[in-house]
């Protein structure tokens, strides 16, 4: 049972990046499913994420700069994981922007840009390095490659869209993750730490999105029979981006986000969760659009594909 709860916790949090910064940003591939799945287990995780940005920030304070009035995106994400062995899990992650939009008001005129389409595929593997059942400690590491849906920029009505609303940054990348878990079973309390590094290559338009370093700390507590509350503190650091090997001054930065989360177990192996991202400290290099909030709803399903293993798993404890 503990294992199932553990797996559930790992799979309910979609990844987060600077959502509306320069360059196509891929909101998955960051920090989901960091632990390993049991052998023969298939996990399907689908989510919807709505993000909203408004106003500009210069370093850590508001800026008077006016360009984009506001920006929003709606993203559908899908992650599929499979337990190849007791210690090794393989994953495929992908997603599609229903819209990635910016609304402008320049000299009294209103303009808008709307991008849509697939973001990228991330193929990855996770390996359980340490599992200490006495001290309830677990450590998992993983690595993956990111392949863009398209290396060509999106064009609508004969006009190429700006980087900020492109569904994909058009670049290949590498994702490295580590996951640490400490359980306190008696208190039904868990603590886990996830670190992710995203390394981006240069796209065909000579634009290199800055690498990102994410750290997330989770505390979870069961509050009712079917409901669990999770509090996450996340730190995101993004390096400067480069265009034609020249640094993009207004790119990259650091932010801290508070993410409360409620999880509801619909029935065994089916879980629904709701997340709200609230940045509480943001530091941007140069002047950049400020992320205000993001809301995600996530459905997680697990299936044991091997009959024998399924019987063991479904045996009452």
């Amino acid at each position: 049972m503990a294992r199932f709860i553990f797996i559930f916790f790992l799979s309910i949090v979609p990844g987060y990046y600077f959502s509306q910064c320069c360059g196509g940003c891929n909101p998955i591939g960051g920090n989901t499913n960091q632990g390993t799945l049991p052998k023969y287990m298939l996990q399907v995780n689908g989510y919807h994420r709505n993000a909203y940005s408004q106003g500009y920030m210069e370093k850590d304070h508001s800026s008077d700069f006016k360009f984009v009035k506001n920006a929003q995106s709606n993203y559908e994400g899908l992650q599929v994981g499979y337990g190849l062995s007791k210690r090794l899990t393989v994953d495929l992650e992908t997603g599609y922007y229903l819209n990635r939009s910016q609304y402008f008001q320049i000299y009294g005129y209103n303009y808008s840009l709307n991008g849509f389409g697939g973001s990228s595929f991330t193929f990855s593997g996770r390996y359980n390095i340490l599992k200490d059942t006495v001290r309830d400690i677990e450590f998992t590491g993983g690595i993956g490659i990111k392949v863009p849906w398209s290396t060509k920029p999106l064009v609508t009505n004969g006009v190429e869209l700006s980087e900020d609303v492109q569904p994909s940054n058009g670049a290949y990348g590498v994702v490295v993750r580590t996951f640490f878990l400490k359980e306190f079973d008696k208190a039904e309390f868990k603590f886990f730490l996830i670190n992710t590094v995203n390394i981006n290559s240069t796209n065909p338009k000579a634009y290199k999105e800055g690498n990102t370093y994410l750290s997330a700390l989770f505390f979870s507590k069961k509050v009712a029979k079917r409901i669990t509350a999770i509090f996450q503190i996340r730190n995101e650091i993004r390096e400067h981006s480069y265009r034609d090997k020249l640094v993009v001054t207004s790119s990259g930065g650091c932010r801290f986000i508070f993410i409360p989360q409620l999880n509801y177990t619909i029935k065994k192996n089916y879980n629904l969760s709701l997340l709200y991202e609230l940045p509480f400290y943001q530091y941007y290099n140069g002047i950049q659009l400020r992320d205000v909030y993001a809301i995600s709803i996530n459905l997680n399903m697990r299936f044991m594909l091997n009959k024998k293993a399924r019987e063991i798993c479904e045996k009452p404890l």
Partner: protein
Amino acid sequence: MRFSYLILCMCVMLSCKKKDTKKPSTAPEFTYTSLTTDASVLKQGDVTNIKATVNGSVSYAWSITAGSLFGNGSSVVFAAGSCCTGNHTVTCTVTDSNNNSESKAVVINVTN
């Protein structure tokens, strides 16, 4: 062995891309006179109109190295936000119904 050979042949066949043999069969049905911008130096957050002057019936394709383009057809508005200081190229390619095409570009310098 035979199976491996078959797979290899399939891979080779799939990797062979048919060359685009479609060539313009007639002379261009248009004259691409100019591509002009109202301003070649902009401040971040400013905009400028860019206009392609073409005689004839053509379709327009606009591309940018950075920044944002609004509108479509023969005239667009270029704008650059905080991310885009430096020189940026806006290219307009016109194509007629016989697949004849011609491109022109303007460079816009975006400053702080």
